[in-house]
């Protein structure tokens, strides 16, 4: 037990972070780290490992931004947010960027005052059921109890899909993905619905993944991406081109393994521009010219990050599918870096 009211003032003073209104970049540089909003824990996307260190696909984006700005991928502090809190956290400048498998929609972009900087994962909503039920298609789900996470587009798509197909359902709503999974595993509901990536992620942490199947139907478009506040274009540009640099690097076959070699020896003008050996793309962003080099060296390109966190060989075992490069059958297509 302790306390005298002055300590509250002292403590409060320490924890108050004053952010300049205009330039997030200056502010981030001044405080020496990026405050990055992530999920409260979704395997493969963002979850603390056993040592309490954050890992995952979305976390890699934050690390890439940190590498681009500071040349060091670890100058990031993570704020776990629930689906409910994530937008107010960004609006109130509690976090600088939100990388939390968030669906890019019109109203979020326009009405809530955010700027989505691109899509880092093309997703769609699906359903997971227990194999024992013998369900083969989502159209057989009439009358089922569905577990869903609160405050998501998932909730709206679910209602639309069932109404459109003339089916009935009962929804049970929870705040975090973990609670939804727990309720589903306890058989409180028959169906677990969320983005398919999330379903695979959740299935990967179930004791017997084989007893559950993800139904083939994809009932919505869910382009997931990082987002920043409206009104600070420079910061938005840094976030946007961090993502694009990772995608472009994969297309150009620049990876963390060969980036040093390529930086020294490449004759490819596109790679030279990206790695900062020619041109001044970095300075135009307000960063150093080796910003993209730092990203690739420290975090890797898009493909590496995907393979490390989500791809075949990980517990999630997600195929690239739509998230392959445009010239490999997917729809990932970074605008040129020039």
């Amino acid at each position, binding site marked *: 037990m302790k306390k005298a009211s002055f300590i509250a003032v002292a403590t409060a003073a320490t924890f108050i972070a004053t952010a300049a209104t205009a330039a997030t970049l200056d502010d981030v540089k001044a405080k020496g780290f990026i405050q990055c909003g992530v999920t409260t824990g979704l395997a493969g996307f963002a979850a603390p490992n056993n040592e309490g260190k954050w890992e995952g696909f979305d976390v890699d984006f934050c690390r890439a931004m940190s590498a681009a700005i500071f040349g060091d991928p670890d100058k990031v502090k993570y704020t776990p947010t629930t689906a*409910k809190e994530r937008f107010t956290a960004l609006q109130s400048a509690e976090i600088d960027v939100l990388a939390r498998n968030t669906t890019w929609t019109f109203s979020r972009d326009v009405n809530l005052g955010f700027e989505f900087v691109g899509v880092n994962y093309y997703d769609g909503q699906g359903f997971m059921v227990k194999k024992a039920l013998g369900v083969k298609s989502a159209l057989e*789900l009439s*009358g*089922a109890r569905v577990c869903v996470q*609160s405050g998501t587009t998932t909730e709206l798509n679910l*209602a639309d899909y069932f109404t459109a197909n003339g089916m009935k359902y*009962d929804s049970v*709503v929870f705040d975090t993905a973990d609670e939804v999974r727990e309720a589903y595993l306890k058989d409180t509901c028959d169906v677990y619905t969320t983005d398919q990536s999330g379903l695979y992620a959740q299935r990967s942490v179930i004791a017997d993944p084989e007893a559950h199947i993800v139904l083939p139907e994809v009932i919505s478009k869910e382009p997931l991406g990082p987002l920043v506040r*409206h*009104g600070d274009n420079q910061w938005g540009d840094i976030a946007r081109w961090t993502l694009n640099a990772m995608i472009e690097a994969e297309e150009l076959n620049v990876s963390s393994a060969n980036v040093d070699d390529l930086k020294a020896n490449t004759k490819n003008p596109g790679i030279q521009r990206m790695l900062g050996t020619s041109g001044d793309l970095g300075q135009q962003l307000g960063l150093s010219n080796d910003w993209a080099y730092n990203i690739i060296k420290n975090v890797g390109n898009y493909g590496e990050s995907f393979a490390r966190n989500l791809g075949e060989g990980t517990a999630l075992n997600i195929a690239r599918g739509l998230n392959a490069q445009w010239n490999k059958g997917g729809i990932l297509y970074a605008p040129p870096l020039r």
Partner: protein
Amino acid sequence: MTTDVQGSVTGDSIFRDPRYRAIFYQILVIALFVSFVWYVGHNTAINLEKRGIASGFNFLSQPAGFGIGIVLLMDYSSQTSTHLDVLIIGIINTLAVSISGIFLATIIGFIFGVLRLSKNWVVNKIAAVYIEVIRNIPLLVQLMFWYFAVLSVLPLTKDSIQIGENFLINNRGVSFPAIIPSNGFWLITVAFLVAIVASIFIRKWAHKRQDLTGQVFPVLWASIGLIIALPVIASLIMGNPFTVNYPEFGRFSITGGWSLEPEFLALLLGLSIYTGAFIAEIVRSGINAVSHGQTEAAHSLGLRPGITTRLVILPQALRVIVPPLTSQYLNLTKNSSLATAIGYADITALFAGTSLNQTGQAIECIMITMIFYLSISLLISMFMNWYNKRIALVER
């Protein structure tokens, strides 16, 4: 601080005069308060404008677009129903669980409060253990325990525990036959209401007769008889104007019949067992507060123990019990907001949760929710104050 007694008497300065000083302080407080409100309001306005959040209550008339698990007394469709409907459903659900919780908690509380005073050592200790264990564990832990640890141990739908033909218990809750009214059901409703009104009159009449002649009329049995008999007669007259819908095993869970969802059950059990422990303590201290002489006097007049408790002790104990009981009822209602942790669709989970998320209207949603709880608090206190006044000692 020195005190100049002289000053306040002679009033050589108006700052020494307590009256002026009071006015000065109050003006200062008002100024501080107003500037605080202005400061917060100003910041909020700027913040809202900067972030492009449109404030106002227009969102209430927009379609909600999401599904709700538990809908009572209303038609709800995700396509046409608005956020206002969501609010109303949230209110109904909160009231449903609070009212049934209050009812159940009162029963549990009175039983255990009386048991706690039992001369029987074993019974007494059981009540004591219940009270001391339950009161000292956070409600949220208990709710989660009920929902995630107890209800999920119940059998799956297909292995439901069956009581009789049509009463099913499984991990999806409790199902029982539903009565679906058809044409002519109104007469049964009317008969039921008539029976209640008649019971009240019989009670008054019996009181009067007892005062005049000393004869006792079995009011309770007469009332129960009326309340059962009248609707049955009405039903026979109209030729049973209802159909019974039995629960059946569907593909996923039980279909048909009425059912109580596991979320509702867990919340109801958690709330009433938790609050019941507090009520038991209140009942115990209320009964203890009645002087033992009252019991002895009643016994010496020849009243049997049961009648003594009912006619002598309880009426006096109630005066002590009612005020703290009121605050327990209020607590129960407010605690029902923990529903959000176990997925029951109450006002906090639905309106301050889902609606808030889908519309982003944080201030409006939380304000409306708070106003709702405030009005409930006010209503319950008003009702209990009225009741308290009615049973208060009439001094002649």
